[in-house]
């Protein structure tokens, strides 16, 4: 069939002159925002690597540096709160670079009228989370905005840590033959938050998995001591956008294909059920205490065994392999032996009509 060529798109919806919620989803819209606005403005080669943390050398020491901002509704949820989440998020971004987190900053944007006791509870939770993660909050800032201009409390945390000598993690390192390992069940955080959000309110026992991953990463690196630390190619904590988005980023960056075996992906029964009800795919739902690692085949069993010894890695699984076919694409083999694409979403997943 002959295509009718015209130079302009009849519905040029891509061009949006305003920020949409989807720009914060971690999907294609977020990536476009980064490309069009920030990379162009900041022009930093370190930033352009687009890892979860910047890694650079100062005086012979390799440092990891990262920042993250937390906006979550409700502020308190089963399994955590905005305070613990703000600490875990930044600790985990450092850990994914192979760094031991040292110091954190905390910036607060508070809405006029916020209950003082709520803030007290958030601060106590942050202090506890920092202590458990073996890090310290050493600087901070507070701003207050008028009522209606914020949603209770927004928190920014920045963290700095030292990268373990010999560790060089980058998504670009993934090679055909490598194994894909996840540290545990997927989708717990996102579904815990969703179940408590106004207007949905389904009863469930799903608890957020929010947790600091630096100790688990330490265990994984220790398991390789003596052999090559390069066997762990890269790690990601699949937060917003879920496992699917993290793996798509890795596949695109390393120009490899990733094939998942759907039946080996650990997902809790309650999470699967809730996702099914709302028409969501758990592979795109956020996690706050899970990691996915790309590991050389000869080291995969040792790393997996070490992870399963750690309380945060009990349900760790090898869920797929890196391949040379379909560079840039993530696919999944279904229980029926068929294959499908696990695409990057453009914006947030939206619940279906029926």
């Amino acid at each position, binding site marked *: 069939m002959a295509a009718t060529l015209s130079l302009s798109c009849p519905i040029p*919806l*891509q061009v949006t002159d305003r920020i949409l919620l989807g720009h914060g989803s971690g999907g*294609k819209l977020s990536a476009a925002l980064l490309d069009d606005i920030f990379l162009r403005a900041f022009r930093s080669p370190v930033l352009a690597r687009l890892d979860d943390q910047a890694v650079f050398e100062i005086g012979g020491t390799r440092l990891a540096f990262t920042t993250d901002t937390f906006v979550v509704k409700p502020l308190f949820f089963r399994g955590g709160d905005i305070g613990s989440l703000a600490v875990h998020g930044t600790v985990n971004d450092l850990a994914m670079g192979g760094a031991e987190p040292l110091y954190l900053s905390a910036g607060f944007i508070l809405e006029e009228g916020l209950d003082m006791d709520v803030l007290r509870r958030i601060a106590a939770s942050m202090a506890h989370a920092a202590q458990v993660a073996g890090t310290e909050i050493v600087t901070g800032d507070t701003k207050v905005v008028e009522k209606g201009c914020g949603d209770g409390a927004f928190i920014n945390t920045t963290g700095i840590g030292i990268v373990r000598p010999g560790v060089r993690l980058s998504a670009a390192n993934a090679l055909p033959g490598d194994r894909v390992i996840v540290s545990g069940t997927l989708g717990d955080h996102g579904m815990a938050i969703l179940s408590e959000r106004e207007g949905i309110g389904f009863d469930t026992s799903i608890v957020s998995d929010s947790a600091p991953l630096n100790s688990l990463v330490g265990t994984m690196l220790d398991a390789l001591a003596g052999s090559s630390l390069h066997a762990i190619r890269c790690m990601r904590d699949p937060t917003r956008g879920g496992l699917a988005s993290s793996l798509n980023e890795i596949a695109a960056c390393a120009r490899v294909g990733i094939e998942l075996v759907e039946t080996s992906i650990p997902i809790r029964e309650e999470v699967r059920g809730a996702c099914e009800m709302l028409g969501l795919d758990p592979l795109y739902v956020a996690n706050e205490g899970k990691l996915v690692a790309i590991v050389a085949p000869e080291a995969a069993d040792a790393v997996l065994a070490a992870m399963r010894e750690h309380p945060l890695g009990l349900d760790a699984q090898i869920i797929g392999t890196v391949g040379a076919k379909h560079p840039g694409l993530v696919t999944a083999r279904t229980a029926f*032996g*068929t294959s499908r694409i696990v695409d990057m979403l453009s*914006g947030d997943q939206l619940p279906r009509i029926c």
Partner: protein
Amino acid sequence: MKFLDEYRDPKLAETLVADIRRRVTRPWVLMEICGGQTHTLMRYGIDNLLPPQVELVHGPGCPVCVTPLEILDKAVEIASRPEVIFVSYGDMLRVPGSTRDLLQVKAAGGDVRIAYSPMEAVDLARKNPDRKVVFFAVGFETTAPANAMAVWQARREGLTNFSILVSHVLVPPAIRLLLESPANRVQGFIAPGHVCSVMGYSEYEELARQYDVPFVVTGFEPLDLLQGIQMLVAQLEEGRTDVENQYARSVTREGNEPARLRMMDVFEVTDRKWRGIGEISQSGYRLREEYAAFDAEKLFGVSNTHADEPPECIAALVLQGIRKPVDCPVFGNRCTPEKPMGAPMVSSEGACAAYYRYRRHDDLVMVQR
């Protein structure tokens, strides 16, 4: 897992596939009507398990996809008003009207909210007496009873700040249109289980008699679909044109009588335009005159606009099962889920979007073991 794994058992799937292979002696073209079924078929690659003689084409049963541009433009116009809280199912928000979608209205300051049930919108109307709450009542016979219930409840409570923007469509008139088209290739239909759980299936018996085609009322899980296909192939090979019910755990011949009564109390049948297809007579619902006070189109006096579809888009052919999404010259290049040109690329349940999402590469069609 309870109520999921039972319907996704690979061993049972193999048995069903083997049975289909055994029965089939010549090519058959089958259509699943419902977008939810298209989604399951693509996600699990069910069509790739079938023998080459069994071809599946995808029908017009994605409510998001077939909602016409004109209604979307009205939704955008109403949602942009400062006094309005516009409430919608989530997947309608990203559907482009002729200029904008509802997410962009929200970004520009419109009060647009996602709900999982129209009763949430009624509740919002109760809690916000100084605002006008409008629910976007979209969908097939499946969502109509709940929307009717919301209107009925609002009238009972005397709520004057609640209304609905109606764009309900009906399955049987669309099937009739397909069957009367000279280009029709479909020889058997997988009838939509959820629609039939409300409506029953006597309407389909009439269609089967009139057009000599078999129907199997089918569920939405992978094994439901395989069994529905097996039953259809059996009918076709045996020369039968019956209406059979695979989805007996939800559907009876009579359907849900109380739901239907409530629905017919509030709605009446009317002509409706389908995005990508055009106007189909007696193919939708509108509010009855006695419920006019709840009709957002009347209350807000939104103008009757006319919007044209882009000419390159072959949505009409795809929605009638005449062409496959990949046959379209703009598929995957100028038309993607981020930048949809036509109805079936708009929602995740549209045939083009399902192909794009799960099936962009030809060799993924191979069954791998």
